[in-house]
């Protein structure tokens, strides 16, 4: 398979996997030409490695989560080779070389060298200088990372301690934010019960889970949560007792771009999934949480709930309804109920998922699904009641929400044009 089209998205285990963009950066660093077909093989291998190798912990985990950049990769490459020979970065770089050497172009690129023997000998000086530079600058960088880990690594440790061994239910788990949450939870040592509608996405994910040997830790239930009682039937079908679920992330949501007034059928469908589906799932789990005396509901709302938006009226309204219902739920549960059933409301800004067009203004303001998943789980681990991000988008939303309605309509109404 050749070409430069991005490949089919794959299950990416944090700390092990690399997405297409990260793989491209790593290929540029190694002097190899990225290829979607080879990326697919590479991602498949990393799934195997993640399933068979110990989960990195502490500083190794911190380094594994660093985003690749050409200079940073040079440091990571050399220092992990010298100090951590089984670090996930070693697996990633070694696997890129392995899959590329089985490709004719990759093999040629790997063995490229100066045409003259003198040139070959002279190039050793360049390699030696680069090694010395990476050793010194990389040593300083590594020291900085150790300091950053000492300061910021506590949140990472808390997140792991919170979710390790927990069973977490996620609705809408086959793509976007739901999938990113699921794989991050897997990397944190949690058991995941994913719920999603039947379809090609669910089938593809099932295959990847089986391929990675994760069937025991990532179970998938098929349900259309907009249908009352569907969640109960789906859990029963895969043999999961609601009493064994420690936390639920009510993430499933749809967005249909239709200008109002439009048809109420669209409005109804969006509310059925985004509002009724989430509340129905919560209602299924709360009795089990109360019986056990603990449980955590994490609702995924949106910063869009603070204002209207042309073309997204149904979505923003549904999130507003959800946020208010969640607030009311917390009130209805009362003081003792809130101690038993913890509730976190997440209001993210834009997340780079299938709902956003690549290259648009929205895309530039958006955060990646992996980054959003990390923020959400850190907030949940810290037991925060509400979590809004990213900061710039939150400030923009707060400003918009404080504007007189007329000005807001005038300003946001221009987006339609």
């Amino acid at each position, binding site marked *: 398979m050749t070409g430069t089209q991005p490949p089919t998205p794959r299950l990416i285990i944090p700390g092990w996997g690399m997405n297409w963009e990260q793989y491209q950066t790593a290929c540029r660093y190694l*002097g190899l030409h990225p290829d979607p077909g080879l990326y697919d*093989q590479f991602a498949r291998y990393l799934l*195997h490695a993640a399933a068979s190798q110990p989960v990195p912990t502490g500083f190794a985990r911190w380094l594994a989560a660093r985003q690749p950049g050409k200079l940073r990769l040079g440091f990571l490459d050399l220092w992990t080779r010298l100090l951590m020979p089984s670090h996930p970065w*070693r697996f990633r770089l*070694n696997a890129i070389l392995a899959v590329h050497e*089985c*490709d004719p172009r990759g093999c040629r690129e790997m063995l490229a060298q100066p045409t003259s023997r003198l040139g070959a000998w002279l190039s050793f000086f360049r390699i030696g200088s680069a090694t010395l530079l*990476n050793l010194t600058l990389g040593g300083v960088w590594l020291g900085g990372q150790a300091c950053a880990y000492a300061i910021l690594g506590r949140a990472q440790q808390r997140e792991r301690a919170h979710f390790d061994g927990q069973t977490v239910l996620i609705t809408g788990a086959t793509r976007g934010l739901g999938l990113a949450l699921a794989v991050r939870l897997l990397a944190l040592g949690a058991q995941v019960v994913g719920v999603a509608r039947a379809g090609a996405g669910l089938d593809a994910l099932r295959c990847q889970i089986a391929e990675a040997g994760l069937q025991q830790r990532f179970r998938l239930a098929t349900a259309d949560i907009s249908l009352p009682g569907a969640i109960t039937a789906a859990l029963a079908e895969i043999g999961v007792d609601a009493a064994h679920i420690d936390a639920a992330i009510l993430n499933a949501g749809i967005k249909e771009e239709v200008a109002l007034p439009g048809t109420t059928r669209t409005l109804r469908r969006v509310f059925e999934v985004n509002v009724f589906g989430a509340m129905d799932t919560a209602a299924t789990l709360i009795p089990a949480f109360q019986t056990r005396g603990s449980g955590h509901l994490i609702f995924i709302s949106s910063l869009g709930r603070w204002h209207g938006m042309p073309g997204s009226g149904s979505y923003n309204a549904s999130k507003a309804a959800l946020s208010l219902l969640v607030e009311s739920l917390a009130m209805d549960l009362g003081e003792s109920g809130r101690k038993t059933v913890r509730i976190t409301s997440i209001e993210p800004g834009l997340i780079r998922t299938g709902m956003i067009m690549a290259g648009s203004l929205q895309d530039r303001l958006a955060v990646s699904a992996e980054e959003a998943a990390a923020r959400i789980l850190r907030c949940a681990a810290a037991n925060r009641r509400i979590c809004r991000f990213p900061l710039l988008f939150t400030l923009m939303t707060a400003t918009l929400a404080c504007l007189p309605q007329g000005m807001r309509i005038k300003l946001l109404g221009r987006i339609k044009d």
Partner: protein
Amino acid sequence: MKYVVVGSGPSGVHAALTLLRRGLAVEMWDTGRQEAAFPQPQASFHGLKETLDDPQAYFLGKRFEALLPPGSGELLRYPPARSFLTRADDPCWPFSGDDFTPFHSFTRGGLGVGWGANAVSFDDDDLKDWPIAFGDLEQAYAEACRRLPIAAPTDALSRYFPGITPNQAPVQLSPHDAALLTGYERRAATIQRWSHLQLARARIAAVTAPEHPSACRYCGRCLWGCPAGSLYDPAKTTLLECQQHPRFTYLPNRMVLSLETRDARITGIRYLQTETGAITTEPCDAVFLAAGALQSGGIFLRTLQHDAAFADGHVRIDQTASVMDTTAVKIPYVFLRQVGAQQPDEQFQYNRLIVAHRKPRNGGWPTHCHGEVLSLNTLLYHPLIESIPLGSRLAMQTFARLHAALGVVTYFLPDRQVDGNGLSVVEDRDSPTGDRLRIHYQEAAGKQALLRETVRDTRRALMLLGCLPWPPQIAPAGSGIHYAGTIPMGEGPLRSDPSGRANAYRNLFLCDGASFPTLPSKSITFNLIANAIRVATLAAI
């Protein structure tokens, strides 16, 4: 009369062919799994990367078995495309314990299917502790040379391989090999004086005559399975020849466990039907064990333990008399003249050169230590790159400049019997046979001194040749693949007589390395073939 040969490896097929030529009817019992066909026979190693639908699956394995993880310390693993090796997760894996991990095959042709094809013969010095001399094997070597293609030169080393009669031109050398050999020839006297080392072209069991339809095409796929049929493979040559004989019967899916006995004679064979899992017994008139020294030793030990004649405990039958294996030592080097050179894509993949480290030894070791010089060509490179301590990018650039200059000298150091070494049978309910073989192995005294001396002299010779030697790598016990000596020639019921017949049973013949009383350094396979021919010729039946 029913004569059964157990095993279809190099020893088994040549014993069977010899018996057939004696006019006897022969049954060959074998586990007999079949190796898959090699894809795209016309393509070269690098050509496969262009033409295969999924080259990653072919080279790395469907579950990436050959993608060697960083930190594993391994530089090479048998390609997943070659399924002849049995792994420890195979339900029929016959061994227990992990301090001696052998290679094992249930494929037609046995481990001979993966033979590196180095054909060298023992001489009187190698056989000095045997009850037989080279003269006893001479006719068998001559017959083996008629049966196998031998691509070899006639040179200064030929006198140390008296059983080898070349019938093909030697395999072509790579530029690296040619430069190394030229350098050696120019300074041979000095190198021999300072290091006792001699360098020569390899003796390879391969067809090189261009007019032959199986002639080597230098496609670089030896390790991945020779698609031209040029490298000798017992399953694709001698076994087929046996199968064309009307008095030959090949019975696969039979894993022999032990033999039935009465009055010091074999009367039947107890075996596992691998397809059904049933354990059955059938009568026979004579047995030729050729299942490999380890399996043959296990069959023999179980037979003794089931034999009422040994039930009174007058003979200790909890363990075989011995077990031996060569110690594999690798000395990597960089040939400085070849740094930055271009490497031809298509070459013979196995070694084209050999070394002989010859000097009188203390402690009775043979004079000749045999080594194979392999310059790097078509292999998977990622483990080599990962082994360079520079990080992947700089290591890859370094490797690109060095790869035509890299080579390795591999020695197979000799072995001999050590008190306490041998096989025992341990109960294992997870095994379909109800037991497994445990290998007890301690290195012979003086082996380390021999190793140090050989390595020191080889490093010295490499430096004289303009190479930069690297520290040696010593393979773990069991990696030598030259297993022998489980029923060695000698006295007592646990041993065999000089003709290869078991002392305990008059109609049990040992055709494989089980009867070797010592294990010389020289590659064993060609000598196994000659010995099997000898045993089958002498067998009094």
